[in-house]
């Protein structure tokens, strides 16, 4: 099992190679607006530095956002072609899940700034009980150690002021915040009576090695994605479409149009 991880969702360009349990190489480079120039040369140099060939890959993990659409499309296009040429499976992983995967805590609230006082977020819970046992067993048989987490609130774009309402059922638990804008979200939640803590800063960024482990885990459980359907989790319609709907949407509805 040789798994490649590619993360181009944020300003950090993440690349990692995982051989069974062994992390072979990992890059987490803060390179705003340079993913197009740097991604392919870095993949090439990664294989030059290690004793592996691109053709040795048995699976790939890629982040599907939330994040920069341009960055995501660069990563996903690369993955589509590698998977198509070498006929290997791919797993698309939420950037929110990637943030949550490396952090201790029972209830994890990873955040991405969606601008205009909104965030992209999801609530993850550490898996316990039967499901976790089964996953641990599969992981062990594939020589993987894994902390499984489940999204109990699915990724979505939300106004920060609406968070207390959406998280109302989890008020009695302590929530661990990651990503940005942490401080603004903490203010809103504590004002509403939630108990909130920040994750350890060292673990509070997307790490390619974690993505590689996550992907290897999913692929070991045969949870791969169709590369023809693989696309960013846009969570938002194109602005032109929103404007058009606002301008003409209602009229066409009345006219019985689309």
């Amino acid at each position: 099992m040789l798994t490649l991880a590619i993360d181009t969702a944020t300003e950090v360009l993440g690349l990692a190679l995982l051989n069974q349990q062994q992390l072979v190489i990992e890059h987490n480079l803060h390179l705003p607006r340079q993913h197009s120039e740097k991604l392919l040369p870095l993949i090439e140099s990664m294989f030059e530095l290690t004793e592996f060939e691109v053709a040795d890959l048995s699976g790939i993990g890629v982040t599907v956002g939330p994040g920069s659409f341009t960055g995501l499309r660069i990563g996903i296009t690369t993955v589509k072609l590698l998977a198509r040429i070498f006929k290997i499976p791919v797993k698309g992983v939420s950037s929110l899940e990637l943030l949550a995967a490396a952090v201790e805590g029972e209830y994890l609230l990873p955040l991405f700034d969606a601008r205009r006082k909104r965030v992209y977020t999801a609530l993850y819970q550490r898996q316990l009980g039967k499901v976790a046992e089964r996953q641990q067993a599969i992981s062990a048989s594939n020589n993987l150690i894994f902390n499984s987490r489940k999204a109990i609130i699915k990724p979505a774009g939300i106004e920060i002021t609406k968070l207390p309402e959406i998280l109302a059922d989890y008020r009695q638990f302590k929530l661990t915040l990651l990503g940005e804008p942490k401080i603004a979200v903490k203010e809103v939640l504590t004002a509403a009576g939630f108990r909130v803590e920040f994750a350890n800063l060292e673990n509070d960024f997307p790490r390619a090695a974690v993505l590689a482990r996550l992907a290897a885990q999913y692929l070991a459980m045969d949870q791969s994605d169709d590369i023809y359907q693989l696309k960013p989790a846009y969570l938002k319609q194109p602005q032109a479409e929103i404007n058009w709907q606002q301008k003409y949407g209602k009229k066409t509805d009345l006219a019985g149009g689309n």
Partner: protein
Amino acid sequence: MQFTQKIKNETEDILILALESSCDETAASVNLNGTEVLSNVVSSQVKLHQKFGGVVPEIASRKHLELILPVIDQALVEAGVEFSDLDAVAATYGPGLVGGLLVGLTAAKTIALALKIPLIGVNHIAGHIYANFIANPDIEKPLICLTVSGGHTDLLYFASRRGYKILGSTQDDAAGEAFDKISRFMGLGYPGGPAIEKAAQSGDPSAVDFPRADLGDSFNFSFSGLKTAVMNYINNQQQKGNLVNKADLAASFQAAVIDSLSSNLMAAVKKYNAKSIVLSGGVAANQQLRKSISKQTTELGLKLYYPPLDLCTDNAAMIGAVAYYQYLEKDFAELSLSADPALKL
């Protein structure tokens, strides 16, 4: 980059996969030795953008990502080849919309890395010119090419197919841009080329005598002076309370543009003893321009070519045709190549 195979020369068969995604067509082709097109798959998004009155970059980018694999698959199947048969992979890297360009270019870079074959970055404008060589393989050299669109105006000299020399370019606006701006100013709509041409049909091209830019011995072009002259003329007439005859004005403006284009072209033809002339780019569809140039070329006994309609729209075969000559010159790109939305010739 290290390549698995030796680089071939022109005595050997060279198979290139080409990708094009600079605007609203996702396209892939397989070319044998440049002009032999084994497959040419184009998936157009025109309908998606219609209701917005123009191409929406984010919508185009999303569609390119969705279509890139199916289009590549189909190009390979129709050509009856496998990835492993390819000698090189090419993609348009500009000019165009950056989001779309990045999809095709990133796909090509990945293929180059995976198969260890050369990557060739192609200029979209050159693609439109080489489309003529696909349609007319026996075109005689030396030739002069006038390529005119909303983004560029260039005069090129080809001694052979393998490369060109730029004789002159516009110093300010592209000819198509001048058409668009004047059309908008006159309230004739967008795109300006067809709108002006239509309005000019019933007009008198000698009604208003607009200036032709004189750039001395150079083969350069300039349209900003003409643009200002037309706008001043309209403003003056309105101040005097005169009605502007739109047909006459459109015809006079169009005549001035065509004059500048064709006089430079014919001067270059004479200086370089050209055997053929090629017109390329959106503005080359202007019937008056074609008529004016074809009259002068027939007198001189020269051949005039314009691209056939199916190769006028964006496609990948024309990119593969350029790529072949770049391959022979070993003009390969690094994996760090990125999109250049404002790429010039």
